């Protein structure tokens, strides 16, 4: 099995990702926040590329079921329910809710790798489990060990 690390979301095109498992890392703070929200009972997180898109997605779901969260250049977005702080994703705020999330880098990085076979957000908070189970998880569509030099797993930093 081979491993690559891409230091920028712009380092690869969609066609390069077919057949690969990609781990997206934006430890400060998007992927950490995603882990916190889901750990504390959020139903799901919908990453969006812009505040306007986030608002539009939230409207389609309905305000009672949605938490609108995000930042621009680390600052919470006016009118949103939450910023992009992991500690803001408390059970009281996110349990059974869909979090519509818009961040400067992390959500865009996720959206840019949708053509990969499997995509896992990663951070320190889930590192050991990700290392042990993620790309080899039987339901992940992850890549089984393949020929040497065939790129099959990437760690992408957002």
């Amino acid at each position, binding site marked *: 099995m081979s491993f690559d690390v891409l230091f920028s979301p712009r380092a690869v095109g969609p066609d390069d990702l077919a057949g690969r498992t990609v781990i997206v890392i934006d*430890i*400060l*703070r998007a992927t950490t926040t995603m882990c916190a929200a889901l*750990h504390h009972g959020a139903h799901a997180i919908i990453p969006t590329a812009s505040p306007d898109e986030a608002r539009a997605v939230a409207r389609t779901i309905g305000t009672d079921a949605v938490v609108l969260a995000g930042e621009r250049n680390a600052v919470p977005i006016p009118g949103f329910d939450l910023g992009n702080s992991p500690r803001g994703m408390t059970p009281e705020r996110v349990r059974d809710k869909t979090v519509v999330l818009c961040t400067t880098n992390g959500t865009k990085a996720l959206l840019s790798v949708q053509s990969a076979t499997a995509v896992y957000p990663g951070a320190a*908070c889930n*590192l050991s489990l990700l290392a042990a189970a*993620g790309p080899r998880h039987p339901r992940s569509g992850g890549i089984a060990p393949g020929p040497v030099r065939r790129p099959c797993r990437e760690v992408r930093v957002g």
Partner: protein
Amino acid sequence: MDDAYCAGRLVTAVLEQADPGIHDVLSDSARAAVEIARGLGQRWDTPLRLSMAGQDLQRLGFGADIDDAGREDVFPSLIRFHDGQVARHAETT
């Protein structure tokens, strides 16, 4: 620096848990990430606070988020981005 360090820690962890019968190959960038992680040591707060993102967060009053981000395995959930949304995929018990 923060994300590169995390990537290096992740690649290192994968290699430590790898089946010895599997031949793993690292690209130059993966090797570089491993070396970054090795050079900065085991403390997460070092690269997180030294990074530009970390310095911006401290300046804006979000220093506590750096502490949270450096807590290893505190949310032991495998989460996956699929069909436009991120959801839990598996977790430890």
